[in-house]
């Protein structure tokens, strides 16, 4: 059994530090040299900060870099190397401190020390690009848990004039037991061998015929290797892992192992969504769906699978998705739709939550489209969102219900008629307009008194277009109300148009009175009265309407007459059109 014993780093480091100190004390370091090293360090620190703050083409960064290259080049030319000993917060050159910063968040020494580097050596011949590459590595912040630390990055970069010594390089390992224990001398065993091999005197060397093709690569093989290497460099490791998971899940019989892999896959899906790798997440979810339909799978396996898939869309996933959607372009609309469509009805609630937090309009539309598709047989899932305090979520829920077009949603939606948010009321009105049920039209009547003019006018139009006779009286009452005079002309016209549509010949006498009425001292009022009546009559288009207009035309003058005449022409033309058809 191998017995590895090693000394702790601290003991060794203390010994080495003491030894170094002794060596250094014995040789005086010229002040000029230390000062040169310190200057290089100051410039390096300044430049590394600039790397963090500025883009690579920033002129200030370039200036610092040039300065560093000059100073470094000058020091190396004079002293052939710059070796820095790294302490936790300090960098020392030949025992002298040339840099110190005790703030762990800011200290270059701390950063390098934390990654295990104990000495850094810059050698003569160091090229400009090496300096930039070095600063690129040490200058940028990285999460501490990733495997690509400063040492790995320096190693991969392989800078010929930058070397380092690590903490582990100081550790010793007891290698005296390098395998099974063996006697110091093998004489006995060798003798045994020589006894066992008979007729050694007849030993004749037989040339070993090595076919050249075993040893050398031919052109095709070289070409294959090159392609294999290139393919390997381009591959996405996730492809293989996904394939491995598919393979294992397809054949694994052991329930516990199967369950573990199902959980692993579900976790992976969550992680992939978190990182925006939607394509793979979709791939995995589809696979699990297909697997659950596999007839060779036992019922216990299927149950296990179903259970894992239930929790596929968690709150965390919703938050992760929202963050990626709103802060990056990693997820395309079609990918998002693809992912959401894979979730079943049980995920509607979570997807609605997603809808409630996503900011990007385009993506909200995608989510709405998807919810319509998923929820077409489950309208009731959306009802709780009708009372959400996020107005846009409520509005979107109404939109979804309208598009699903299920009349059972009428009651819950109609409760929003008096919602304080006009944008919600608008959607409710649209919903009610789309529902053929006469009850919906009755609900629309309430919009006739909405505080928003556009909603009132739209309600009038809807009622008129639907020929809902029950609206005639309420609309007429509007004309008699105190507030009517304060409405703007477009709304007034809308009211009378609605009256005309709804009342037809029944209201012609009223319009005729309005046409004929004289306002001796208020021509503006007279004109308005005529305009409104004409608006209503234009919608009626019957002979009665025509007669009323003709009569008024004979009586009125100037621009009022012109209005009437125009209306006459319009109605005549409309009638002629009808006759021609």
């Amino acid at each position, binding site marked *: 059994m191998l017995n590895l014993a090693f000394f702790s780093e601290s003991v060794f480091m203390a010994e080495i530090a003491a030894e170094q100190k002794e060596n250094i004390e014995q040789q005086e370091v010229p002040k000029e040299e230390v000062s040169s090293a310190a200057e290089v360090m100051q410039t390096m620190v300044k430049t590394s900060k600039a790397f963090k703050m500025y883009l690579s083409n920033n002129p200030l960064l370039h200036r610092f870099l040039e300065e560093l290259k000059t100073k470094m080049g000058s020091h190396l030319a004079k002293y052939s190397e710059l070796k820095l000993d790294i302490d936790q917060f300090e960098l020392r050159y030949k025992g002298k401190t040339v840099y110190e910063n005790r703030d762990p968040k800011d200290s270059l020494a701390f950063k390098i020390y934390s990654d295990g580097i104990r000495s850094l050596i810059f050698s003569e011949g160091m090229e400009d690009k090496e300096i930039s590459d070095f600063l690129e590595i040490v200058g940028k912040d990285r999460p501490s848990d990733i495997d690509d630390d400063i040492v790995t990055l320096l190693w991969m970069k392989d800078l010929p004039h930058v070397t380092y010594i*690590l903490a582990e390089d100081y550790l010793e*390992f007891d290698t005296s037991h390098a395998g099974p224990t063996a006697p110091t001398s*093998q004489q006995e065993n060798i003798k045994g*061998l020589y006894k066992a091999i008979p007729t050694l005197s007849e030993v004749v060397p037989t040339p070993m015929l090595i076919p050249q093709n075993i040893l050398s690569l031919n052109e095709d093989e070289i070409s294959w290797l090159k392609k294999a290497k290139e393919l390997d460099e381009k591959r996405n490791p996730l492809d293989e892992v996904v394939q491995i998971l598919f393979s*294992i899940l397809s054949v694994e019989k052991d329930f516990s192992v199967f369950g573990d892999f199902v959980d692993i896959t579900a976790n992976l899906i969550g992680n992939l969504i978190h990182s925006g790798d939607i394509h793979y997440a979709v791939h995995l979810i589809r696979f699990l769906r297909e697997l659950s339909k596999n007839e060779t799978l036992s019922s216990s396996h299927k149950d296990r699978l179903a259970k894992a898939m239930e929790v596929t869309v968690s709150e965390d996933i919703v938050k992760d998705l929202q963050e990626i959607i709103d802060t990056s372009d990693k997820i395309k609309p079609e990918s998002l739709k693809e992912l959401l469509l894979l979730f079943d009805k049980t995920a509607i609630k979570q997807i609605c939550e997603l809808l409630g937090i996503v900011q990007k309009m385009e993506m909200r539309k995608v989510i709405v489209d998807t919810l319509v598709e998923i929820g077409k047989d489950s309208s009731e899932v959306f009802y709780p969102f009708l009372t959400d305090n996020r107005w846009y979520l409520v509005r979107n829920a109404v939109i979804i219900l309208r598009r699903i077009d299920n009349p059972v949603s009428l009651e819950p939606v109609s409760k929003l008629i008096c919602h304080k948010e006009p944008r919600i009321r608008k959607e409710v009105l649209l919903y009610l307009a789309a529902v053929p049920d006469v009850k919906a039209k009755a609900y629309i009547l309430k919009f006739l008194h909405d505080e928003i003019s556009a909603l009132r006018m739209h309600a009038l139009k809807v009622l008129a277009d639907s020929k809902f006779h029950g609206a005639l009286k309420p609309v007429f009452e509007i004309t008699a109300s105190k507030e009517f005079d304060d409405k703007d002309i477009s709304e007034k016209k809308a009211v009378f148009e609605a009256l005309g549509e709804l009342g037809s010949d029944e209201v012609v006498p009223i319009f005729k009175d309005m046409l004929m009425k004289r306002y001796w001292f208020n021509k503006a009022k007279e004109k308005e009265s005529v305009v409104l009546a004409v608006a209503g009559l234009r919608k009626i288009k019957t002979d009665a309407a025509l007669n009323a207009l003709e009569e008024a035309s004979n009586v009125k003058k100037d621009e009022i007459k012109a209005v009437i005449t125009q209306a006459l022409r319009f109605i005549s033309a409309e009638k002629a059109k009808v006759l021609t058809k």
Partner: protein
Amino acid sequence: MSEMKSEQLEREMIRIGKTLINQVFVLFKTAQNYEEGHSAINATISNILKIVREIHRRNEEASLRVYGGYLLLGELRLKPDAAGFDSFMFTMGEMKRYYIEAINFTTSVSAEEIGKFAYIFREIEPIPSPQTFQKFHQEMQRRNILGIEIESLSEEEVIEEGDSSELKDSKVRAKKVYFQTVHAVSEVMENAKMGQTLKLRKSKRVVQGMIDQLLAAETNLIGLTTIRSHDEYTYNHSVNVCILSLAIGQRVGLSKAHLCELGMSALFHDIGKADIPLEVLNKPSEFSKEEWETMQRHPIHGVRKLMKLKGLDALSARIITGAFEHHLNYDFSGYPKVPSYKILSLFGRIISISDCYDGLTSSRVYSRVPSPPDKALRFMMSRAGKAYDPILLKLFINSIGVYPIGSLLLLSTKELAVVMQNNPDPGKWSTPKVKIIADADGNEVDGEIFDISDPEAGKAIVETVDPQKYKIDVTRYFV
């Protein structure tokens, strides 16, 4: 845009540099095989001249320089890939043998001078001393070669054969890296057994160190793979598979970053064994049917362990693939049986080869009786194209040798020798470098390492011997 262009130019120069090295290698070999003046060498000389002119046309220096285990073209570092690995190693080796650090083809170099230069290598027998360089340089002057300049090897580049301090240092470093890795693996595996989160940073560091060591002095590290585990408490097997996989990966031409991923993947390919009962793992005799079935579950356990304890990132994905695939076999005849899994990754194929070789030569697994290295290799070769990727298996043989490192050989002089290193010359792979451990009378000796292909040695290989059968420990010669 200018950055892209400069990258493209660099790539082109790298391609030109590799071609130059290949042609220089051919030049050396042709000069060895044919007398001076033979026309066989003319085509190669002409190629070299063309390449040199092309380099000069681009205002670059047409020089090859040995530097820290690499060859540089001017200042551009050239990394060998699968196609050129051996020519690289051989060219670098030859330059070092003659204590030449750099060869510079000047703008005035002629075809005649290139030819004369090549034959100096044939004429002068190098001795392990800087005097070799002096001799070489004098010969160049005598032959009036002005268009080629050479520089002598600097101290850092000199590693002498035998027990020089540099070589010792290199071996010590290899040993340190090896045992650091064993320690790092054991920490992770113990965490895995206890179901704790896996932290791989330390392992990654040691794998990086291992790659550096491999690039600098591959043989030392491969030699340490003769350290065999005999139980499941130690993790030599994981480390050996890592080293052997990296040796293949290096020959494939993987970048350092990819080598690191491969190393990590190989290091933890057996992490699933943390879930196999120890009494099964360490059973001294053959497995029963049920025990074997339990054992065959470890790839799936490995995937489960990694996904639960490490989560998924680019590195862990690689390790997961290695853990899952390493027993599938090239033709998917292995395990686990997963009909829907159709493509074996490059890493899976590499690790499969290394794992099998180390497994066959250990006493832990399969038949519980280890095979000698050459027998293991022959077994694997018989299954090339079925269990093992045939091309990658070739690369594997290239790295450990036809007589794998650690093989015990009986020589024609009746001496016993251990294979210490592959011969860098591809034409001499059947004659490795060996160390004599017993004389013709069977007396144990501490012999020098020498090249069997050297005619002056006057020795030849008779047969391989199974060290396990005679309880001869070969590991001690590498540690």
